């Protein structure tokens, strides 16, 4: 019997919690802290407290009438409608509502945080993809033009050669999920393919010097890190050279860092007044920030010996640590 009484007493509160929770889902404001909500909740608290007291009174009355002989007396004459009982009910409801509100607010905050994190992740990966794609179109266009010309000229071996190199570049660059980082060795393969294509365009006007430190080759670098810098060197440096254009590329490992250098003997900053110059470098900087925050170095400028030089230093991350 006291069990039945307990059920009425406590199941009630379970039902109240559930109701509150559902109400909170339906009308989010029900579980938010504001003057209006608190006013409304006070009213609800009074109603709920009175209702509960009513039920308890009924239960006690019922037990005193039909319950076991021994316990009838204990429930007879109980009066639930007094200030003390009402106060307890009222307080209990307040506590329950506060607890629900706190949990609800915390859950909502957590949900918001997760949503904004997810959004941020999506944004930055979309951004990254856009940056990577910016490197492609005009180069692709030029290359297809070159292939057309070679075919027209019936220079089939050269055309096939360019197609193989283009294939090598696109295999990495146009994957549905372009890897964000690749080993330096693979990046240099892309660069070499790119240069092989440009060599057809410039013929004997282009001289290339690549200097590599084998211990840096397995280090990971952002995919297409060097390619746009070399593309810049060609389009803004070598393209303006009347004589032989030289590009020097070097990669070396210095302790825990990898140093990359691209240098050309073009007209230096004069050749870089062309609109569009700087987009490549800004892309590079943004991508470096994305991957390394401030743990990187990017310097670009005109060395004393003339031409243009880009220096990048990033942490050495071995492919298989």
């Amino acid at each position, binding site marked *: 019997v006291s069990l039945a009484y307990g059920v009425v007493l406590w199941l009630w509160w379970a039902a109240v919690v559930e109701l509150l929770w559902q109400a909170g889902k339906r009308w989010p404001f029900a579980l938010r802290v504001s003057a209006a909500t608190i006013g409304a909740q006070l009213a609800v608290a009074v109603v709920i407290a009175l209702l509960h007291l009513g039920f308890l009174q009924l239960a006690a009355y019922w037990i005193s009438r039909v319950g076991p002989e021994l316990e009838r007396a204990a429930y007879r004459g109980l009066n639930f409608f007094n200030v003390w009982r009402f106060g307890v009910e009222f307080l209990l409801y307040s506590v329950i509502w506060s607890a629900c509100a706190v949990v609800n607010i915390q859950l909502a905050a957590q949900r918001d945080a997760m949503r904004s994190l997810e959004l941020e992740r999506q944004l930055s990966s979309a951004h990254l993809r856009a940056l990577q794609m910016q490197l492609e179109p005009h180069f692709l266009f030029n290359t297809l033009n*070159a292939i057309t*010309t070679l075919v027209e000229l019936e220079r089939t071996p050269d055309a096939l050669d360019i197609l193989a190199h283009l294939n090598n570049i696109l295999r990495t660059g146009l994957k549905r999920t372009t890897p964000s980082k690749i080993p330096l060795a693979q990046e240099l393969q892309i660069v070499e393919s790119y240069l092989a294509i440009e060599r057809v*365009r*410039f*013929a004997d006007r282009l001289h290339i010097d690549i200097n590599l430190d084998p211990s840096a080759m397995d280090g990971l670098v952002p995919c297409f890190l060097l390619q746009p810098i070399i593309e810049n060197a060609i389009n803004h440096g070598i393209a*303006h050279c*009347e004589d032989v254009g030289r590009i020097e590329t070097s990669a070396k490992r210095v302790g825990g860092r990898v140093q990359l250098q691209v240098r050309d003997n073009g007209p230096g900053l004069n050749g870089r007044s062309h609109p569009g110059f700087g987009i490549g470098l800004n892309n590079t900087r943004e991508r470096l920030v994305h991957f390394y925050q401030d743990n990187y170095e990017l310097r670009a400028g005109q060395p004393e010996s003339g031409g243009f030089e880009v220096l990048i230093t990033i942490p050495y991350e071995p492919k298989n640590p």
Partner: protein
Amino acid sequence: MKLRTVIADDEPLARERLKLLLSSDAEIEIVEECRNGKEVVAALKTARIDLLFLDIQMPGSSGFECD
């Protein structure tokens, strides 16, 4: 009489292409190929030219600057 023609472009492949396109025209005779603005100016000074195919973006002086 054939048109004495000069082709100016810094990219060898572009010159080849232009030559190929022009080769079908019996009236055109290519007398000189230039790789930059300087060579164009020199060519114009030394010979009589009827037709000039001039690239704009070239190292040294651009097509606009050849005067």
